[in-house]
């Protein structure tokens, strides 16, 4: 089965690097200076957000898809709230007059 095999998790690892790269560029375009603790907070947020998807799928596999979807909505809601706080934290120390060109 592909989705529980080593190749799949290697692929997930590659995607994580790509997501990280994209986030890094996004932060630069916003003028954010990504310190280690900002990276750590972003990683924690991302794990929580992705856990919602993983849990949803797991509960679908248990034939508890409705519960899985409700759980996902809860995680998405929590993630949205956390994202607002994270956004403000990431913006700490950002450079002024950002030229995004």
């Amino acid at each position, binding site marked *: 089965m592909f*989705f529980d095999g080593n190749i799949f998790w290697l*692929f997930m690892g590659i*995607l994580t690097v790509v997501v990280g790269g994209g986030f890094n560029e996004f932060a630069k375009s916003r003028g954010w200076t990504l310190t280690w603790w900002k990276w750590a907070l972003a990683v924690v947020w991302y794990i929580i957000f992705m856990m919602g998807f993983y849990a*949803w799928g797991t509960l679908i596999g248990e034939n508890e898809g409705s519960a899985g979807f409700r759980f996902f909505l809860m995680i998405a809601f929590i993630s949205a709230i956390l994202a607002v706080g994270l956004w403000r934290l990431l913006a700490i120390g950002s450079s002024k007059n950002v030229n995004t060109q």
Partner: protein
Amino acid sequence: MTETAVKSGPSRRDFLKIGGAAALVVQAGGLVAAGNVQGSSAETYTGWESFNPATQFFNRKPFEFEGPAHLPVADVRRPSHMTDYVFGRVATFQRAYEANPTWTPDDPVEDLGVPDPLVAFYKEYPERLEWDYRTFSETIPTRDEDYKVYGNYYKLADAYSSGFTAHAAYLPTAGSPPEESDFMEMQRNWPEPKPIGDPVPFKNEEKAAEFIKEVAHRYGATLVGITRAKIDYFYSEGWAGCPEDYDYSKLPEHWQYVIVIGVPMEWDTVLASPQASTSYEGYDRVSTAAVRLEGVIKNLGYPARASTPMTYYDMIVPPFAIEAGLGEVSRPGYCITPELGSNCRLAAVVTNLPMATDKPIKFGVEEFCNSCKICAEQCPSGAISMADSPDEQEWGTGPVLRGYKHWYINNGACYNFWRESMGPLGCRLCVAVCPYSRKDNWIHQLAREVDPRDPTGITRESLLFMQKNFFDYPEAVEYRRVGSGGHFASYRPEPAFLHAEDFLDIPITSPHAD
């Protein structure tokens, strides 16, 4: 004049940003798919994925305490086959009622014709008498009529269940008192029973326990623990192979250790409780494993006797399971284990093989059961206490059961619903709905490991909030018969292989049709 270079298409930065966003979406989808595979994986079916010691994966060490787990709070009364043991009691009631069919609860119980100990029991627990009467005067005749209508819907569930009983008659049951039968070899087809040989000494008690646990797992036990025998939990009469005048006041000298083993019922079918699931999935495996264990111990020269659901019980097993560290006592009265939750069928072997014993554990079940109450809310017979704690019970005998603090269970009401439900005999709904009775995937691993380590109770309350608000439950009345406000609902649909309408060419009436 200079020309200004005009960029076309996305920049490198935009490409990385878009790529990152796309990767996020793909990763989210991949995790849903991976979760789906894990949620349905055979490897998560604890106890049904293999016969292997690794099935007992929970680290009990941090939760051990010296014990004993049970301390008497009043005069201890040993359990009785005739009264406390529901099958023994209803069988006795049935014989008396069939001989005296005009008797009603308005008549003196002495007129029913049951033995004096049962008369005394019914006077102490009058609600049991009412329920036992209702079972035989109303429920069973009604169920017989229901079965004529809906029986074919459960044809495959019945057949599947009966397969697990196929070799029950061939499992050896002690045919003589412990002083004799426990010292005889088990092999069949010999002209005369042969005594066991001389005991083969182990290097030490730890090695003996290690060996016994290893082979118990290999014989099919998902869980195994060892504790000391205690007379309080042995029946006060009626041990297998013993005559009525046998001295039941003390344990035979060689009943020193109790090896307790547990296995789960299959994880998909048990969710189809109370109608289409079967206890025999667990009974068969745990009985077979216990008999094998008796065999290996006797082969090493030590007397042994198995107590199993398919042979005979000389004891009530859950207290021993709890003392042996398999789990904790729960609101419905049975032992909840970390690995299997409530989905744990037990058997035991008594012996004098010296073994290192296990310690009882506390991993949060008491506090969880105090808050949860899902089993009580779902129970269609109302047999399970709704009190906030054992101390606050207002019915039965309060918090004391045969001298020990315990939740009160009305096993008369419980058995009554057994005889109302469709499919293989029994209910098991409290097992199915228990939040601890879950497969072994990462979500439940997380809950299992975090909750017992959280002294604040926040994890417990959060898990309960999600359990009660995210998961769908039928109303308790829906489990009941058609005509009583129900439609023979099951907690979850029957597994596809039990859908008779998909396999059998017979007329089938679904109770869920309307």
